[in-house]
C-alpha cells in the first residue's frame, strides 16, 4: 500500500492533529521523519484546490475544511440565528446613542440593574470599550462603541444611526 494513502487515511480519521512523531509509527520505523515530511508536503499539494486542506498546526498535521466551504456545510445544520435579549439590545442602544456612559447611567435610563454579563458580551465582541473613567467617587468606567461596532452594523459614523424623533430622556 502506498505510504501516502496510509498517511492520508490516518489524518482523515484522526480527531486530533498528528505530529510527525506519531505518523512515523504507521510504518514501524520503515520511514524516517524526513521522508514523512516530504510525503506530507506531497499530500498538501494533492489536496490543493479541494474542499479540505492539510495544515500544520500546533499539535501536528491535520485536515480541515477551507473557509469557502462554510457556506455550504452550514446548510446541513441550519441553526436559528441567535438573538440578543431586550435588556442587551437596550443596553447597547444606550451606549450607542448616549456614549460615553457609565453602567450607572445605563441603569438610571433603563430603571433596572445592568447585568455585567451583558457588558462583558459586548466587550468580548469588541462592540464596546472603556474609553475613560468619570471623575466621581468610584471612578466608574465610561463605555463607548467601537469602530468594529460601526463596521458590523455597516455604518460609517455613529451619526448614521437612525435619528430619534421621539423625546428622549437625558441621562
Amino acid at each position, binding site marked *: 500500500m502506498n505510504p501516502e494513502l496510509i498517511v492520508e*487515511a490516518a489524518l*482523515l*480519521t484522526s*480527531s486530533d492533529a498528528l505530529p510527525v512523531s506519531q505518523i512515523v509509527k504507521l510504518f514501524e520505523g520503515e520511514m524516517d521523519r524526513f521522508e514523512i515530511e516530504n510525503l506530507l508536503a506531497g499530500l498538501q499539494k494533492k489536496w490543493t484546490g479541494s474542499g*479540505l486542506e492539510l495544515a500544520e498546526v500546533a499539535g501536528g498535521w*491535520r*485536515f*480541515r*475544511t477551507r473557509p469557502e*466551504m*462554510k457556506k455550504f*456545510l*452550514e446548510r446541513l*445544520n441550519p*441553526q436559528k*440565528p*441567535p*438573538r*440578543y435579549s431586550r435588556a442587551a*439590545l*437596550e443596553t*447597547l*442602544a*444606550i451606549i*450607542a*446613542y*448616549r*456614549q*460615553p456612559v457609565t453602567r450607572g447611567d445605563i441603569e438610571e*435610563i*433603563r*430603571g433596572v440593574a445592568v447585568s455585567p454579563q451583558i457588558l462583558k458580551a459586548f466587550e468580548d*465582541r469588541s462592540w464596546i*470599550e472603556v*474609553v*475613560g*473613567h*468619570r*471623575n466621581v*467617587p468610584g*471612578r466608574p468606567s*465610561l463605555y*463607548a*462603541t467601537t469602530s468594529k461596532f460601526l463596521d*458590523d*452594523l*455597516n455604518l460609517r*459614523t*455613529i*451619526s*448614521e*444611526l*437612525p*435619528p*430619534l424623533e*421621539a*423625546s*428622549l*430622556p*437625558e441621562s
Partner: protein
Amino acid sequence: MIEARIHGEAILELPRDLYIPPDALEVVLDTFEGPLDLLLYLIRKHNLDILDISMAELTRQYLAYIDTARQRHELAAEYLLMAALLIEIKSRMLLPKPSEIEEEEDPRAELVRRLLEYEKMKLAATALDGLEQAERDFFLPCVSREWLELPELPGVNAEDMKTAWLAIAARVEMASPHKVGREALSIREHMARILKRLQGNAYAEFSELFDTGSGIAVFVVTFLALLELVRESLVNIVQTDPLGAIYVSVKHES
C-alpha cells in the same frame, strides 16, 4: 480457573459416570452463559439428539456437573431452577400416558424449543462479532469543521438600536423630555473619540484633537464635544502661558 486444593490434593472428585473428560474440568461454570448453554454443551459432548433427548441421561449429566460446580463456588439460581425443570420433565415422561389423550405434547418440547432458539442466538452472536465493526475494524473520517464550532453571534442592525432606544423612551416618557437629535449624537460620538484618544496619554494638544480635513461641521462638533466633556468633568483644558499651547488631559480624581 478455579482450582481448590487441600493438602495439595484437589478436593474435587469426579462422579464415575460423568462423561466429562478430565481436561474439560478446566471448563468451569463461569465459562457458560447459563443453564441453557451448559445443556447445549452436554448435548453436544455426548452426541445426544436434541430432538429426542434422553432425559434420564441429560438430567444425570447436568446434576452431576452442577454438583461438582457447587463444591467450587456458589451457583446462580438459574442453574438450580433448570435442575428442577429437568427432573420434572423426566418424571412426566415416566408417567404412563392416559390412553384417551392421544395428542399430548411431548414434555420435552418446550425445553427443546428453548435450546434451539438459544443455540441460534449463540451462533448469531458469533456471526455478529465476525462482522466488520466501526472503530474496531475500520475507521470513520473525522475532519474538523472548526469554524462551525464557533458560536454564532446575534446579528444587530441600526434599526434594532433605534427600536430598543424608543422602547426605553416610551417607558420613561413621563420623565424629563429632552431632544436628542443628529447633532447631539455626533457630539457624543466625538466625546467618546476624544476620550479614546486621550487614553494612555497624559495629555494631548488641543489642536491635535481636531481633524482639519473633515470640514467645518466636524470642527464645530469636535469643539462642542470638548465643551461637553469639560461640562461633564471628564477632561481638563489647560493653557499655562498666554497664547501658548492648550493641553487637554483626562481629569483624574484629585
